[in-house]
Each structure stands twice: as C-alpha cells, then as structure tokens.
C-alpha cells in the first residue's frame, strides 16, 4: 500500500445534528432518492444506514434528571460504514466484488456485484444493503473517488463542527485518545484493534452505550468462527457418508 490506512473519527460530542453529511454524501455519490417518510420518533426521519443512505444522523432524546427537573438531553451521531479491519462483507462475497482499497477501506465494485445478497446479513453493523430496483448492494466508499484525487470525503468536508474527521487512522486514534480524556461520559467505539472486527476504520466517540445509537455493543466478524464451521461440516459430511454406507450394508434384499 502506498497510502497509509485512512479512516473516519466521528466525535459525536460536537455533532449538532445538521445532517450536512447525509446531504453531502447523497449529492457527491449521486445516491438515488429513497422517498420521504416521517418516522415520528425524533428529528431522525432517515432511520438508519442502507443502500441509499451511507451517512445517517441518529437523534437520541434522552431524559436527564437534575435538581428535581427532568429535561431532554440530545445525543446526535453520524453513523457510517465501519470499514472493518476484518470485514465480514468482504470475506463472504462470492464474486470478489467487495475489495480492500489502497486506502485500507472496503468498497463494492458495482460492475462485479451480482446481487447475491450474502454480505447483507453478514455485516455485524447492518450497514450494507441491497437496492431493490437495482439488485446490487451499496454502501459508503469513504469517497474512494475523492481520495484518489487527494480530497477528503464529502461528509467530512461538509461537517461544520469537525465532528467527522478524516485522516490517517493512526493519527485519528491518537487524537481520539486525547479527546476521550477531555469529555465526561465519553467512550470510544471501534477504536480498539483487538475488538471483534480487528478495529474499525471508521470509529466513534460516544456519550452513551453503543446500542443507544443503534450500534451493536460487541460485534464480531462472523468469519472468525468459519474454520470451526468448516470442521463441523466435514464431520457432518463424514457422518452422512457413514449413515448411507451403513444403511446399505445393514439392509437385506
């Protein structure tokens, strides 16, 4: 790799929920309209990441009681594909459409994907999804095209508070370690290279538990267990063969 591994550090403590990232992402990547709906749960009417939403701003209205009064505390966070070190979508893709780029990111080659859909339930974060009318799967590319041109991704560029920071992953991790010490109740999510996905290329500073933001608390790449699965399949296959041989040997005409 000629480039260092690039990543996103999303510092949700300074997110103001403006959704500029969602808009910039849709504009730059020419993502089709996926309809407008009012979800009636918060200021979030997008709902979650999907084939046509590669940045998603979550709004959590959290009641906080202080001095005998209960008020709402707003948590806002811009979610995105995690570009995992051990990416399940990439592992299970049977066509090789999903690849790791020179920037260490995970990208779908849209001319290769045949819409088998295997990556969709494989992703432990529920990020990648199939576009129904198109049949193929789509997700954040970390603006691969912009990176090739030396530009930062559209969402990071549009973010007015630097909640979304783009850069070499090593630098971002150092910056995040300093930041998390400054902010009360803060915790880093996806920054640990020893976690179940080997560390995320897009990690977060959160102010509450991950599941409150719709993130899995302790995701694990499913292919971690694949060698064990193949071993069980081999034993099961041997069992099937033995059962058939035994049935013929034990049966008289």
């Amino acid at each position, binding site marked *: 790799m000629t480039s260092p591994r690039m990543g996103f550090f999303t510092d949700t403590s300074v997110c103001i929920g403006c959704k500029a990232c969602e808009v910039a992402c849709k504009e730059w990547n020419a993502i089709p309209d996926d309809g407008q709906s009012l979800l009636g*749960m918060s200021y979030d009417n997008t709902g979650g990441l999907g084939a046509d939403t590669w940045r998603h701003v979550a709004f959590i209205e959290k009641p906080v009681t202080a001095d005998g009064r209960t008020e709402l505390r707003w948590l806002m966070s811009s979610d995105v594909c995690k570009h995992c070190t051990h990416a399940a979508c990439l592992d299970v893709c049977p066509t090789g459409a999903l690849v790791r780029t020179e920037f260490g990111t995970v990208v779908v080659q849209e001319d290769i994907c045949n*819409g088998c859909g295997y990556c969709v339930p494989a992703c432990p974060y529920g990020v990648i999804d199939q576009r129904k009318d198109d049949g193929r799967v789509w997700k954040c590319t970390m603006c691969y095209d912009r990176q090739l041109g030396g530009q930062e991704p559209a969402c990071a560029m549009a973010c007015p508070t630097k909640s979304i920071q783009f850069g070499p992953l090593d630098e971002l991790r150092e910056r995040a370690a300093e930041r998390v010490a400054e902010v009360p109740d803060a915790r880093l999510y996806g920054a640990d290279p020893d976690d179940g996905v080997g560390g995320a290329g897009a990690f977060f500073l959160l102010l509450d538990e991950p599941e409150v933001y*719709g993130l899995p608390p302790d995701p694990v790449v499913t292919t971690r267990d694949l060698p064990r699965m193949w071993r069980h*399949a081999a034993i099961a296959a041997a069992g099937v063969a033995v059962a058939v041989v035994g*049935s013929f040997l034990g049966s008289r005409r």
Partner: protein
Amino acid sequence: MKSSRERAMVPPADFRSYYGRPVLKAPVWNAQEIGGYFFLGGLAGGSALLAAGADLTGRTGLRRATRLIAAGATGLSYAALIHDLGRPSRFIHMLRVIKPTSPMSVGTWLLSGFGSMIALTAAGEASAVVPPRLSRAAGLGAGLLAPALVTYTGVLIADTAVPVWHEAHREMPYIFGASALAAAGGLAAATSPTAEAAPARAIGVLGVVAEQAVEHTLRRRLGIVAEPLTQGRAGRFITAARWTSRAGAALLAASAVRRSRTLDVAGGLALAAGSLLMRLGYVHAGTASAQDPRYTVEPQRNNGLDVAAGGRGALGGVQAAQAGLDARGSDAAVRDHPRQAPDRVERAEDRDAVARHRAGQEHGAAQGRHQRPA
C-alpha cells in the same frame, strides 16, 4: 419503592436500542427460494448418495429413481439460486473467484461440479447416449461430492451475523445434513420398488432421528437466541416439520416391518415435506432474529458483562469504563409491565416514551429501553 430495590439486587435482563430499530439488516433473500434451494440441494445430494449405493449393490429400480430425483432437484436448485440473485444475468461472476472464506463461493463450485456429473449420470439412466461406464463413474463422483453438498448450506447460513444462524453454527451442518438424508431417503422410498427400498427407509428414519436429536441440543444451548425458532411463523413451520417428520418416520418404520407400497409413499412424502418445512422454518427464524434488536444486543451485552466481571478488561468495542450496570438497574425498575406480544408492545412503548418525553412529564425510563418479561 421496594420492588425497585429488589430489582437492583439482581441485574435485570433488559437492553436498550435505538427506538427499537433493528441493529442488523435482515437477509434480502426470498424465503421460499432460499429455503427451497436448501431443501433441493439436500435432496439432490442425498439422492446421489443413494443412487451410488443402489448402483454398487445392484438395486436398479432404486438407482433409477434416485438418479432422476437427484438430477431434477439439482436443476431446480440451480434455478432457485440464480433467480434469487439481484442480477441473475451476472450469475457467471460467481465463477470468477474461488474463496474458501465465502461458503457461497465454495457451494457454487461444489454444485457446479456435482451438477455436471449428476446430469451425465441421469442422461445415462434415461437413454443409451451416455455409455454405462461413464454414467456409473459420474454417478460415483457425484456421490463423493454429495456429503459436502448437503452440509455446506449449514455453514452458508451460519456464516452471517444473523443471531439464530450464527449462534447455531456448531449444529447447522449436522441439522442440514440429517435433513437432507430424511428428504432423500423419504422420496426414494416413495418412488422405488418396495423390495429395493430398505436402505432408503433406513436412511430416511436415521435422518429424522439425527436431525431432531441435534435440534434438541441446539435449542437448549442457545437460550434466548433460540426463541425465534419457537415463535411466530418460524415456530409454526418448525413445529409442523417436527411432527410431519415423526409421522413419516413412523410410517417408514412400519413399512420396514411389513412392506407396503402405501406406507412407503405416505411416509416418504411426509419426510420430504418435513425437510422442506424445517428449512423454511430456519430461514424465517433467522429473519425474525435479525429484525429484533434484542437478539443482537442482549447476547453481546451479556458476554460483555461476564467479561467485565472476569476482568478481561473493557468490552470489545467500547473502551471507556462502563458504569452501565447500575444505571440500568435503577432505570429499568420504572417500567415493569410484562410484555405479551414482544414486538408490538415494544414499539408502542417507544412511542409512549417519546410522547412523554416531549410532554416533559416526570418519568425515569430511558427511551428506547426494553424489558424482557420476567
């Protein structure tokens, strides 16, 4: 509040989510097509094994029936597989790589090798165009690949983040392999001469016994993640599968004692139907478990708490120390009415909570928090 103190002593089994929305994306596969594919692939592989055995032991009637079933099922399973692609015209892209990390890639290659051999065998059975020796060699070759063909599908669905499927990754290959034997043995018994059907009956009954034994241990091992296997549409399919298979096995066992064409046909068809229902049930259970955030969050959270108590350090994904346990205990005590229909009540609770928060009323439950029935 006395009750809240008591609750705080024992950590409540609750979890939080983002407005009850799923964490995972449910499989986009068509349940009929993919469940049907698993069934047909199993039937094809099992039948090829029976055909090889029948060939080697000179049971020509059984051989003929199983070869034709295997070829037909292979063709249909190919059709289901291709039709379920988002871009069927790009099926050929499956064959541009061989990836052991992708069970679907491994399976496509297996099915392709198996399919070409079983087609040759069936052609030899149906006409004299294919020399008998070639037909036999191809049939034995297909029989060699068959055990892998009938078990890889268990790995295929287990190698996902879908809670029921992944947590069952130890058992899935055994369950699917056994189900394949049940379907193939059953249909072979139903379609071959009564005098030659003894091995088919044995294989069918063996398949049912093995499948149900492994399923039993699976459900005990999985705990709450096994719930989708017993509830809703998946639960109905799997319960129906269990009793259909049991009835079929009993009929075939009876026919083994006093040979009867009627018993063979009825029992054999029941076994095939049971296998199909079981596959569909597992597909639906996986979808249900992916759609409910509880089955994603709770097992991961419980692992984390165990680990925290054991001292490995922080949760895998979260580095900051978590004081969440205590907070959860006190928060959860506020709302304690048991849920009856988990999904619907859960969402209704969310809407209530939102409304109350907006109105600024007194409450203590965090939004998006759900409780399991005690």
